[in-house]
């Protein structure tokens, strides 16, 4: 509750800052301080110190897992603003507006990690999505940014319609929007009542897949990620997506066992097509930004493994995957934002001119590919272990590993360009400070790759 209220307040404060505070740097610093306050407020709640305590009639349920994932996502946002603050300022002279939208998104995130009612799921998803539509179109003069915003908006609201129809069907069959508490079951008298429930769940599943860009519903992702300003693509692909996954798992793993047999089949189909589409199409991309958007689809396939069954290792896995994937993606987008163009050739010979930057990029790409010693290895390892623990076939694990191997090809194309191709990199001037920030991110990834428990121990106390 603390996080929901504090983030909304901070959003409003940032809105006023856009005309009260003129200095871009001051705006960034206010946003950073606000994020720290948000993290503290959330930590206070997880230690049993409720600043705001309302009776939500069971609509929100604050679990330790939800609060901890809140903390992690807020910390990731802190890192995001800390690194990308300057780039955000360049987009507009009222950067505080963007920070305020980011705070509203964080409000959506904290609803999505704690909802226990389908109404709250809907509200959370909308609070998350609506500011994202605006951020996608942040570059008002650019045609492709406009186009991406309109596309994202139309498809996003279309999927909201599907989500609502699903929720309504579930309500029609269950008589309640609550997910965990049971109500007195009345016989509805609808013929084929169980079909209504299944239809509702499938529609809900489709809409959630759309939000996390899993395969049959991924078609908007490359265009939107490509068209949006790179700094905001970085935000969309990391924090917003991780929140989507947390909500997805909250809906489908706590409740709704009625689909058990066909559920596995459906999920397997979605995972396989996500891995296939993401990895295979990424191989043929010539733009790094577009390649990264397909790679984010491929990584979503891995994150979906956590849905197979709720076990400790699946919960640990989704957390570490979300954090590690977010850090690595944020890092690689932070490098990309400094490039003059998005092609692979722009990276040619980067190791010669900017060795520090090239090293950090290499670590990010290693982590995305899942090479040992980087965080990405443990993330993938936990997900596969969760899959086995949930009783899925070994063949699925093997297929996943094969696709991970394919992903090495397109990630390493950048490394090859940086280290083994001579040429002049098309890069803007990168300040030393920025390089050290990226290096710190890379070191964080390496630390998580050796001691993943640093992150996971807090889950239990």
């Amino acid at each position, binding site marked *: 509750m603390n996080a929901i209220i504090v983030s909304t307040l901070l959003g409003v404060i940032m809105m006023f800052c856009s005309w009260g505070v003129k200095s871009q740097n001051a705006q960034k610093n206010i946003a950073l301080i606000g994020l720290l306050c948000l993290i503290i407020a959330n930590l206070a709640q997880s230690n049993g110190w409720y600043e705001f305590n309302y009776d939500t009639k069971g609509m929100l349920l604050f679990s330790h897992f939800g609060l901890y994932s809140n903390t992690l996502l807020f910390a990731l946002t802190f890192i995001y603003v800390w690194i990308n603050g300057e780039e955000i300022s360049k987009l507009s002279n009222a950067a505080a507006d963007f920070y305020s939208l980011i705070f509203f998104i964080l409000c959506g995130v904290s609803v999505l990690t704690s909802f226990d009612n389908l109404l709250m799921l809907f*509200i959370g998803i*909308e609070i998350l999505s609506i500011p994202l539509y605006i951020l996608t179109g942040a570059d008002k003069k650019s*045609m492709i940014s406009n*186009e991406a915003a309109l596309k994202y908006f139309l498809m996003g609201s279309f999927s909201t*319609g599907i989500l609502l129809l699903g929720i*309504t069907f579930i309500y029609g069959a269950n008589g309640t929007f609550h997910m965990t508490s049971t109500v007195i079951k009345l016989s509805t*008298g*609808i013929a084929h009542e169980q079909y209504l429930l299944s239809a509702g769940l499938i529609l809900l599943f489709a809409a959630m897949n759309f939000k996390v860009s899993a395969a049959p519903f991924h078609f908007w992702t490359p265009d939107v990620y490509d068209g949006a300003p790179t700094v905001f693509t970085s935000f969309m692909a990391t924090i917003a997506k991780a929140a989507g996954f947390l909500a997805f798992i909250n809906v489908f793993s706590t409740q709704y066992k009625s689909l058990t047999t066909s559920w596995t089949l459906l999920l397997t189909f979605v995972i396989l097509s996500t891995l296939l589409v993401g990895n295979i199409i990424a191989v043929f991309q010539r733009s790094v930004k577009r390649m990264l958007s397909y790679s984010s689809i491929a990584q979503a396939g891995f994150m979906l493994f956590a849905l197979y069954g709720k076990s400790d290792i699946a919960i640990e896995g989704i957390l570490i995957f979300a954090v590690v994937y977010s850090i690595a993606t944020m890092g690689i987008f932070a490098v990309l934002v400094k490039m003059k163009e998005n092609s692979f050739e722009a990276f040619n010979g980067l190791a010669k001119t900017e060795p520090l930057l090239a090293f950090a990029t290499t670590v990010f790409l290693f982590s995305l590919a899942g090479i040992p010693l980087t965080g990405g290895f443990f993330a993938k390892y936990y997900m596969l272990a969760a899959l086995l623990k949930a009783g899925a076939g070994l063949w699925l694990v093997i297929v996943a590993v094969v696709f991970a191997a394919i992903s090495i090809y397109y990630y390493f194309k950048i490394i090859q360009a940086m280290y083994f191709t001579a040429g002049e990199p098309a890069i803007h001037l990168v300040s030393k400070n920025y390089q050290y920030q990226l290096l710190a991110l890379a070191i964080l990834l390496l630390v998580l790759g050796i001691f993943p428990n640093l992150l996971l121990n807090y889950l239990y106390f």
Partner: protein
Amino acid sequence: MSIQYYIYFCLALFSIGVVGVLTRRNAIIVFMCIELMLNAVNLLLVAFSKMYYAMGIKGGVVSNAGIDAQIFVFFIMVVAAAEVSIGLAIIVMMYRNTHSIDINFLNRLKN
């Protein structure tokens, strides 16, 4: 009247919305079709709400059964209004740059 009729009617409305989204080329009309989808859902929610209310009365259970669906309808209307404001802003922004709201223009990102 049996609830089935409401379900079929709302599904028909919803399908009209979906077909409109998939076939129309004018951004505003696509947008209207999305609103039609949301309103079909609203209607269905109200129908279910009434159904549970009637059943609650008949079964002698609490008489406020089904009230949550009506509250949900209000939330959908509020969120739809928020979406309209954002959507129209985006469409206006696009119109300023391209002087058209035809979504066939949305193909720059393909190549």
